[in-house]
């Protein structure tokens, strides 16, 4: 929010200002902003439920009501624009009573068992109830009795906890353009539902989890792997290996009260070691491996006239989206598995052999900023080692909860290093966590491998940042290579449609399902907003800058892996373990 406000204020130079009176105070705000936005600019935080930054205001919850002089009724501040001379009361008795009553009506059919809810402690309905001083239920109403939808491998849906604010729907439609869910039925039977009332697991839902980030209550949450991981950690027969995604080190501090954008790599490693993992490894190792495989694939396609543009395949939400909506572009998508899956395949073959452990006795756990990773690790194609390559995938939220359950305070941890050899990585892998990162990492390696020259600057600023679609041209050994980066599937559609229409000017495209890339993934700490996303991105580039090795092809552990085990990049063994295929899915 703060960022948006800043941008708006910066933009006020060109914009006409109007004078309004907020609780009697004269202020000037840009024309065309809503009362809610104007209040935010002036430091007044109007309580909201259905309003969500970045989504179209809806005015459905009636919590953000304010009094406007001359208007007979209270108005919803999120959908009412300011007008010259408007006199607004933001917290008169009438306003406060209306807000509280509306909240109480929302509570009338809401389960009152906060202790049992996934969002206990991070629920906006709970927070508002506290702030508004709701201490009794004045309107005990009929409760909903829906069965909890556990059909999806990633997302649990409890319609009983839903307040019908529609934020999940708007996230799914406006940010992701997936349209997996919408309102169904009417009145008391109103419900957020996939098409045909199907369970979420049978719908076009791509498991990105942006709906979870948008949900103010516990109606949407991840399918938890926490209990399974505890069990594996307790089992003396199991050798339990952890991999942590690039985005975790810049976000897991948040649930422990550290400011967004704090880099906690060393503390995080120490904390998870204390949780009982036999090895704490790094998905970044596999990210470097991905760059070698995908970079080689790109060079081959470029030099041998293969299908272009090549599109990255690290984001399982994007992959399922492609399978549903763009199956005709399947051959454009890299056959490389994602880093999570490459890690699992290497851990249960190469590393298991190194240690002389039966892969059946090895449990690979990942901590991901992602809910789609839970789906990905259960895909049929992800069993190259002979068993499921990655057993369990925890979100950042689940991982933080486990640490807290064990009584580990991340802030108090010493700085420790990842284990060898699957914990060795470069800055190129680190930037995977941010939108544009895979592209930047790939360019660093592809450029040097193809041209044989050393890059003067490793920083490809054109592909960084929060712009929806970014593009750049890189001269690699005389060839102008066009690249594009899209984050969020709504943005992805724009460049995918160009390919479909045959007028794409790109050779290489990175697509990440979530806004901001993995740092803004559906498994990240709540809240995750634009401001927080940008701070996490800054932290990601800070991690990169502080590493001595910043190119994937210089990772010594990767070189060793090829020498000892894999052979050539894109070779037979690499193909068998590190590459995959896709399947078209129904568009319904």
């Amino acid at each position, binding site marked *: 929010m703060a960022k948006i406000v800043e941008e708006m204020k910066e933009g006020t130079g060109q914009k006409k200002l109007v004078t309004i009176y907020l609780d009697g105070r004269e202020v000037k705000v840009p024309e065309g902003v809503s009362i809610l936005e104007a209040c935010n600019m002036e430091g007044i935080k109007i309580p909201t439920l259905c309003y969500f930054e970045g989504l179209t205001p809806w005015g459905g919850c009636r919590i953000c009501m304010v009094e406007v002089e001359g208007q007979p009724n209270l108005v919803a501040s999120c959908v009412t624009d300011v007008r010259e001379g408007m006199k607004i009361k933001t917290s008169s008795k009438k306003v406060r009573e209306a807000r509280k009553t509306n909240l109480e009506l929302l509570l009338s059919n809401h389960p009152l068992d906060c202790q049992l809810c996934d969002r206990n402690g991070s629920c906006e309905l709970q927070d508002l109830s506290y702030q508004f001083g709701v201490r009794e239920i004045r309107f005990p109403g009929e409760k909903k009795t829906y069965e909890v939808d556990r059909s999806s491998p990633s997302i649990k849906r409890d319609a009983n906890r839903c307040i019908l604010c529609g934020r999940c729907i708007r996230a799914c439609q406006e940010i992701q353009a997936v349209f997996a869910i919408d*309102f169904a039925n009417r009145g008391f039977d109103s419900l957020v539902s996939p*098409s045909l009332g199907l369970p979420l697991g049978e719908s076009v839902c791509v498991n990105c989890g942006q709906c979870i980030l948008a949900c103010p209550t516990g109606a949407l949450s991840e399918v938890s792997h926490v209990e399974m991981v505890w069990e594996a950690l307790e089992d003396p027969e199991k050798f339990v290996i952890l991999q942590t995604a690039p985005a975790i080190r810049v976000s897991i501090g948040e649930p422990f009260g550290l400011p967004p954008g704090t880099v906690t790599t060393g503390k995080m490693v120490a904390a998870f070691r204390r949780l009982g993992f036999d090895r704490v490894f790094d998905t970044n190792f596999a990210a470097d491996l991905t760059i070698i495989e995908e970079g080689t694939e790109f060079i081959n396609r470029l030099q041998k006239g293969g299908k272009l543009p090549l599109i990255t395949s690290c984001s399982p939400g994007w992959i399922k989206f492609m399978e549903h909506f763009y199956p005709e572009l399947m051959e454009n998508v890299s056959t490389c598995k994602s880093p999570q899956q490459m890690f699992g395949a290497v851990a249960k073959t190469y590393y298991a052999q190194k240690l002389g452990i039966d892969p059946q006795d090895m449990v690979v756990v990942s901590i991901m900023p992602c809910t789609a990773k839970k789906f990905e690790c259960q895909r049929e194609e992800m069993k190259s080692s002979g068993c499921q390559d990655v057993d369990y995938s925890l979100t950042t939220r689940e991982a933080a909860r486990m640490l807290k359950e064990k009584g580990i305070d991340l802030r108090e941890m010493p700085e420790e290093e990842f284990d060898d050899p699957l914990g060795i990585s470069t800055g190129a892998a680190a930037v995977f966590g941010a939108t544009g990162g895979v592209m930047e990492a790939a360019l660093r390696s592809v450029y040097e491998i193809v041209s044989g020259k050393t890059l003067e600057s490793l920083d490809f600023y054109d592909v960084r940042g929060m712009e929806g679609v970014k593009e750049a041209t890189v001269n690699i050994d005389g060839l102008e290579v066009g690249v594009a980066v899209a984050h969020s599937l709504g943005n992805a559609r724009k460049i995918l449609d160009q390919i479909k229409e045959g007028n794409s000017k790109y050779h290489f495209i990175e697509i990440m399902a979530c806004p901001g890339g993995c740092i803004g993934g559906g498994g990240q700490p709540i809240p995750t907003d634009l401001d927080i996303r940008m701070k996490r991105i800054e932290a990601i580039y800070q991690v990169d800058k502080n590493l001595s090795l910043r190119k994937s092809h210089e990772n010594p552990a990767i070189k060793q892996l090829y020498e000892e085990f894999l052979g050539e990049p894109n070779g037979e063994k690499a193909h068998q373990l590190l590459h995959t295929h896709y399947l078209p899915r129904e568009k*319904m």
Partner: protein
Amino acid sequence: MTGLAVYEEIDEIIGKHQEEKTPLLSILQEIQERWRYLPGDVLGYVSRKLDIPSSMVWGVATFYSFLKTEPAGEYVIRVCCNAPCHVNGSVDVLKTLQKELGIKEGETSRDGKFTLETTSCLGVCGVAPAMMINDVTYGNLSEDRIREILALYR
């Protein structure tokens, strides 16, 4: 519900309304008229044809009480349950119908003839309590009158 002929008919219905600004509702209404309900695969087909996400089509199909997503009987009886009908005895109307037809609200009689439903205001409050059987509206309902009306359809 499959079969080429069916989809040809649906194409025809879609073609008739495609130029309208918001064709979806008219199309669903006409499909409903023709088959008395909106089968799931037909909704999917309409969604693809109009390029409207199927979750949205489902939202529309389930919002209006006159659109049905489950097979209904030959005659759909809709009892108005809004305030004016309520105070004039719509509860008794519903009870009488349940007794006469041997089905509860939301059910279809075993012979497939009658489906019993409640609905929002039919706009004939002057003759409350009221009900509709398919397209025909009946007002001033009493137990005897309901029996007489049902006899017309049996």
